[in-house]
């Protein structure tokens, strides 16, 4: 269970995250928009969802709410993390929030613990308050 979904609209971020995660031993699937991800996502193939907050079309919070109850942990990333926005994301059921730029070790740690919890069979109750 080493699957990671990356959703970011910028090529350079996509390719760099793909590189980092792939070489760290994950299976990486990249999407440019939240809508593209939602279309392609199969809840039967759970993984850690790394979701950028700011996206064309449906934004990160919107995608997060649509993933409610799907069982995959969602980590929100943002280039300008407003504390209020972070709290809102956590309340909406995000596994964690990470501000860009981040220490790659920290990202890998969060991804690892998200996937560990997923492996323990904990279902994420998205929307718990």
């Amino acid at each position, binding site marked *: 269970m080493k699957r990671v979904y990356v959703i970011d609209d910028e090529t350079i971020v996509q390719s760099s995250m793909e*590189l980092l995660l792939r070489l*760290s031993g994950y299976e990486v699937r990249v999407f440019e928009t939240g809508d593209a991800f939602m279309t392609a996502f199969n809840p039967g193939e759970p993984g850690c969802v790394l979701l950028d907050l*700011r996206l064309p079309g449906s934004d990160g919070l919107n995608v997060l709410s649509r993933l409610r109850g799907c069982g995959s942990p969602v980590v929100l990333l943002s*280039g*300008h993390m407003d504390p209020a926005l972070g709290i809102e994301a956590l309340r909406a059921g995000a596994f964690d929030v990470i501000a860009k730029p*981040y220490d790659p070790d920290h990202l890998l740690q969060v991804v690892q613990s998200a996937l560990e919890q997923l492996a323990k069979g904990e279902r994420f109750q998205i929307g718990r308050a």
Partner: protein
Amino acid sequence: MRAAREIAKEECAREPIHRPGSIQPHGGLLVVDPRTDRVIGQAGDWRELLGLKSDPLGTKVAKVLGKSLSGLLRGHDLSAASEALFVETIQHRLFSEKRFDVLAHRSGSYVLLDVEPALEDRQSAALLFTRIREAADRMRASDSLETLFEAAAAEVRSFTAFDRVLVYQFLSDDSGKVVGEARSSAFTTLLGHRFPGGDIPAQARALYVRNVIRVIPDAIYVPAQISGVSSELDLSDSSLRSVSPIHLEYLANMGVRASMSVSLLKDGALWGLIACHSQQPLLVPYETREACKYIAAELMSQLRRLQSEEESRLHQRLGSAVERWLDELGSNQVTADVARNLPLLKTCFGAEAICLRLRDDMFADQDPGSMVDAGRLFEALERNAEKITTNLRLEDLDPEASWRGDLDASVCAIAGDDVSLALLRFRAPEVVSWAGNPDEPVEVDEETGRLGPRRSFEVWSRTQRGIARPWLEAERECVKRVVGAIERLSRQERISALQADLIHVSRVSAMGALASTLAHELNQPLTAISNFGRGVRLLIDNDPAGNSEEAKRYLDQMSSAALRAGQIVKNLRGMITKRPVTAGAVPVARAIHDALSLALPDARVRGIDVDLILPDARLTAAGDPVQIEQVLTNLIRNGCDAMEGQSIRKLTIEVAEVSVEAIEIRVSDTGYGLSENVQSELFKPFQTTKSDGMGLGLSICRTIIERHGGQIWLERTGGAGTEFRFSLPKFGS
């Protein structure tokens, strides 16, 4: 002794010279009550003068002069006359060749008739007019003051036969200077000599203004006393009025037997005198006196002409020098330019010291010997009630102050709110040839204690503080012009500095509003760099001997991400740094690109379509790149904000070359449009439709564009969106 002299001077000034109670004996005076036509007062030897057998006192006027008062006046209105009028010529009872002129004037309720010897070989009026005309023509030919004064003296001499005629000018210290002369060998020259102010007491000067001509046909005379009326009778306008014994003594001391003086009036004030001296008794009859008055009037009119010509030449010369000086002042460092060019301005005005206050800054340039404290000078000037001061003596401005040092000068100053300027001309030492000791205008007889005029007219050369060249009206006008121009320029400079501050502040606040967007833009490449760094490290760790091509590719991407981050920082820094405005070539395409990268880096995320219509990518505008980007940033942000929530979001930026010298940039959106009341107030400060805006955006844009010599306007607005346009001069046009 000094005290005695002071008392003597005061006594001299108190003498009631217009009420002497007597007349000079060469004529006779009748005081007539016009209601009764009777003589109620008289003075003179009537038996000797007219051959009368009895005292005229109490008789009808006709009994003395052959005609009643109304017959003599023949309708002349004495109350309207400014001086005595000639009314009649009469004969001696026995000797018909002895003729007398009768002059009439009012004194209180009386009519005073002066009866005085008439000109023996009386000419026709026509010939007299011709002679006066010729005299005036000769004076008009003068092209300098010196020749004019000399000509006037010569004309008076030819009409009167005085031995010496002087044109005498009063200087600002009340002393008189002989500026023109015509004389026979009987007298020595007095040209250039200075007579002390005390030689002519104050009340005599006042009388000189009232009646402009006075004659003493023979200084050695026994006055004829007035009888019948009070000796207090006012004789101001009588040609026969007896003069002060002190004056007669003064004339005698000078070797003068007969004298005449004609007042020279300029703008109603006593400018000087034409003073005439004869060694022998000399009658000056009525028409000769009138001719001399014409010459005096002509002299003053020619003086005014020459002075105004001189002044307009000076005005022109000084005016263009001042213009040239003002041209040297730049518009953005007026204070420094003015301070640097102060010595030149001082030279322009022929001053020895110049002091300038520009708000709180004080500058001075002074010739050696001048140690004026500019600050104290301006303090004194500001205490002075007059805002504009000309020909003020420094010692009168602040008599006590020690800051003047030993200096005395004539000041021309303008004290304003922002700018005060003072120019000083020194009263340099000069050698003056006094006609006698200037400190002894009167003498007190040691034995009798009696007051007497000085006896010595020996030349008394003395080096003393001179009179500064006076400040002329034209010079004052130029000083005003300079102050006005400096005030204007310094205000412009301040406005310009404030505008630059405001433009900068608005730029910083605009960048503040964009901070979160820009932080995101900056964090994206930084995130990528960090990811790539660790990724490449993993690549090497996993397979140290592996193919390095992949690693190289990622490293290249890292570099370009770093460059992208650097570019954003650079643009941002350009916008928030306060720096001098530059004027140069601004590539329009580049400016638009940079503005978009700052104002709308997130176009895609916000779903805004950006359409750039640029017919010629090489177009360059003239101006400051940062300020032009600031305007673009502002318009782009306004457009994007107006499209929030609209279904179609399209921002169009179009560049058009509208003429050989101008570029137009058009920014249009598909937003909700502006309401009518917003439109009219659009470019005024502090107007905003946004809840978080300060409302300075468009007013700042207008300030910037107008400073660039362009215009900004709202082209259209409404349901289909809004379009703003602005023009800029093309670079090099």
